């Protein structure tokens, strides 16, 4: 029997070791132990979350590929498909923000072109501690430059994302990256090692000692010595990735390329066993054929290296030369390292001599599932109190404070460091609710967004899960697109803690209820646990990545007000709630209260109304009301449209009226001649709408029960919204 300390090194439990000996009928050797350790880590095996994830609705008339492949696929008509996936790179970014984030971008892109799709857009969902700390600034600017470095160089526009700051992310920032691609339906490649006797070829970068144990690194909490876990940090080579994209997409078009699989966490081990397991085959590879960057690498190191920018191809026997030619054009090597077998085993050799042999399926599915306890977190008793603050300062001052706060002000400083226009497809640029890219050669467009209100998830995981989906969908709908698919990234603390596991279960339940009700399937996703340090745990943060389809891109709509004299109308309830709001968190430093409840039927109707009004050209602008409430939403319409606003809200509480939050609300602007049509539509759908003002030239004036509470020149509103983040960062 093996020492427990050695098992720990591989991240395996005694029970798991037992299981391995049963599977093999013998003790595993060191290489095999390493392979199981990596594949059975939470990051690769989902042993803690599998059962919960089954809850997601994953089918629908457009779904071609749900969870289980490198990325999800949905039909968008005209023989085209959209391919999408989101992934976390939290721990690497905490240790080395620039390279951690950069390699996160590289990894998610490979998942998309592995399926034969050309990556068309990236989104990044980021969360950090409070910006006044130098270390947070360092992490934040490092992550942003890492994404900029990699994404810009590979030539995929980063068109959207989110940035949120709260002290809970101080030690453990979140870096989630989503990629969306489009392919001809017939060009889709699955990562299956089919056809006994076919060749397994490795392409891209040579293999070094970098990133060994990356999977297990991502599967434990950050601690004092995380910084010393050097090998887990890899350096990305976006230039190589760009060549790899072009060469792989060229190869994918060929019939003799049967399958494509990226090398991500657990490197060659994971690529081989996943491709073989999916096809029910085996693989016999010789690691001495693997191009190596460093000398004297052991089989263990080669099998577990997480060197970036590598792909595995399954090639019809006899066509290896053809494949090599395609890669040579791009100055890349394509090397045959083995063959597909029918024995279901992953056999690893070194110069012909067997160094490991394990059943492929046992690596991907054999892990003993872990049943986690769950119990309602005790903090919920404390936070579920209703907080009555009242406004104790001049509302205009509060408004400006909020508008210039890190979470609400424009993220221009971030997205202007990203090339968001390469590809000449970006029709709605970052800064709006959802980005819209066009699909050349068609009249279609795709809307994209990522969303999650993690404070809601913290204060009410079920409600938070629902609202993450609803908010994402609302962001899609205001552009005129119909939501068609979800990819999710579940960021949580240590699932071994029953209170954390409760958050996981509840959030997933909430997401599932909303996704089901709104009819949007979950087609791919990623789980990231252990996001905590000894000092703090993150808010539960299930990020929802969503795409929507515009059949006719000319029927799109944007956030900004358009013309003087247009009528500004609120779809939905006027009164918001300050509980669990950003206003309460930022201005009053209170993270408590019950998030406003969402009525999914009401939500669905509002979305349908908005979609119709946009598509039929009834409204000229549409913007969803979220963090910061109505006052902030109106300011955004003004800033983005470079127009003023004059209006009045009749309501009970001043702070709830201005800054209160509540789901199912959308601000639209309508030309007076279309007002009747909008009223009719709303009546038909039984939605309450309220006229709250008009678009005007250059002031933002807002009254509450007919007395003016905000009256500011547009230029000042623009300046505070657009430049506050940059000022905060450059202030030393």
């Amino acid at each position: 029997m093996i020492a427990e300390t050695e098992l720990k090194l591989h991240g395996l439990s005694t029970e798991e070791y037992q299981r391995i000996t049963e599977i093999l009928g013998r003790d595993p050797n060191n290489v095999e132990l390493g392979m199981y350790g990596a594949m059975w880590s939470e990051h690769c095996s989902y042993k803690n979350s599998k059962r919960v994830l089954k809850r997601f609705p994953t089918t629908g008339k457009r779904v071609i590929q749900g969870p289980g492949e490198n990325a999800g696929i949905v039909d968008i008509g005209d023989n085209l498909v959209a391919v999408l996936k989101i992934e976390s790179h939290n721990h690497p970014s905490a240790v080395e923000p620039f390279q951690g984030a950069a390699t996160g971008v590289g990894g998610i892109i490979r998942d998309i072109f592995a399926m034969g799709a050309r990556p068309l857009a990236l989104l990044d969902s980021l969360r950090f501690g409070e910006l006044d700390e130098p270390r947070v600034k360092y992490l934040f600017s490092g992550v942003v430059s890492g994404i900029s470095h990699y994404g810009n160089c590979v030539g995929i526009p980063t068109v959207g994302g989110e940035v949120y700051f709260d002290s809970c992310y101080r030690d453990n920032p979140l870096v989630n990256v989503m990629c969306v691609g489009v392919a001809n339906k017939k060009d889709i490649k699955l990562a299956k090692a089919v056809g006994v006797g076919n060749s397994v070829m490795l392409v891209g970068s040579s293999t070094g000692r970098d990133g060994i144990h990356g999977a297990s690194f991502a599967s434990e909490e950050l601690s004092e010595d995380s910084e010393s876990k050097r090998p887990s940090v890899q350096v990305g080579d976006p230039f190589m990735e760009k060549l790899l994209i072009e060469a792989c997409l060229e190869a994918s078009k060929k019939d003799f390329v049967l399958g494509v699989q990226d090398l991500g966490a657990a490197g060659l081990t994971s690529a081989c066993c996943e491709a073989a397991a999916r096809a029910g085959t085996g693989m016999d590879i010789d690691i001495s054929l693997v191009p190596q960057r460093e000398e004297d690498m052991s089989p263990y190191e080669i099998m577990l290296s997480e060197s970036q920018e590598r792909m595995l191809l399954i090639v019809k026997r006899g066509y290896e030369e053809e494949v090599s030619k395609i890669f040579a054009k791009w100055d890349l090597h394509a090397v045959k390292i083995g063959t597909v077998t029918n024995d279901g085993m992953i056999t690893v050799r070194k110069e012909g001599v067997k160094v490991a042999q394990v059943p492929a399926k046992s690596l991907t599915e054999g892990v003993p599932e872990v049943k986690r306890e769950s119990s309602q977190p005790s903090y919920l008793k404390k936070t579920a109190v209703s907080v009555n603050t009242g406004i104790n300062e001049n509302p205009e001052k509060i408004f400006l404070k909020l508008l210039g706060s890190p979470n609400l002000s424009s993220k221009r400083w971030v997205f202007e460091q990203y090339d968001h226009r390469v590809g000449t497809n970006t029709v709605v640029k970052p800064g709006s609710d959802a980005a819209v890219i066009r699909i050349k050669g068609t009249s279609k467009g795709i809307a994209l967004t990522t969303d999650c209100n993690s404070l809601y998830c913290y204060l009410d995981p079920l409600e938070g899960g629902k609202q993450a989906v609803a908010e994402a969908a609302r962001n899609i709908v205001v552009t005129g697109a119909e939501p068609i698919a979800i990819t999710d990234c579940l960021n949580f603390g240590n699932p071994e803690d029953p209170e954390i596991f409760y958050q996981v279960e509840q959030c997933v339940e909430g997401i599932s209820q909303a996704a089901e009700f709104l009819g949007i399937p979950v087609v791919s996703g990623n789980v990231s646990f252990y996001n905590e340090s000894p000092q703090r745990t993150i808010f539960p943060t299930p990020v929802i990545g969503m795409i929507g389809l515009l059949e006719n891109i000319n029927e799109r709509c944007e956030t900004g007000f358009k013309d003087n004299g247009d009528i500004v109308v609120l779809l939905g309830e006027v009164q918001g709630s300050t509980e669990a709001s950003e206003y309460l968190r930022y201005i009053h430093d209170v993270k408590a209260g019950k998030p406003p409840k969402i009525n999914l039927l009401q939500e669905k109707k509002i979305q349908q109304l908005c979609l119709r009004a946009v598509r039929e050209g009834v409204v000229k602008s549409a913007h969803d009301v979220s963090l910061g409430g109505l006052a902030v939403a109106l300011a955004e319409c003004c800033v983005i449209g470079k127009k003023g606003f004059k209006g009045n809200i009749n309501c009970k509480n001043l702070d709830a009226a201005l800054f209160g939050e509540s789901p199912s609300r959308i601000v639209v602007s309508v030309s007076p001649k279309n007002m009747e049509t909008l009223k009719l539509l709303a009546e038909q759908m039984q939605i309450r709408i309220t006229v709250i003002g008009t678009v005007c030239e250059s002031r933002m004036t807002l009254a509450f029960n007919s007395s003016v509470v905000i009256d500011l020149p547009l230029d000042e509103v623009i300046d505070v919204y657009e430049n506050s983040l940059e000022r905060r960062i450059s202030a030393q």
Partner: protein
Amino acid sequence: MKVKVEVFFKEGVLDPQGKTVKNALQHLGYDEVDDVRVGKVFTLSLKTSDREAARKRVAQMCEKLLSNPVVETYSIDTVEETR
């Protein structure tokens, strides 16, 4: 006092620049080039006259700012008194 600091990626860490420059040189006919590593070099002019103290302070600067110990190593190359 002038101090020169060099910062390179650690051994074993991929150096994409070095690799690309090596390929370019080989393409240009410099076949004798076996390997290239690319690093950064800083020349710091300091208002100090104490050599040893300077070296210590610069080592701190390297740890804190000039290099990223997670992926890079630094070396303090020369310490030169300015005339």
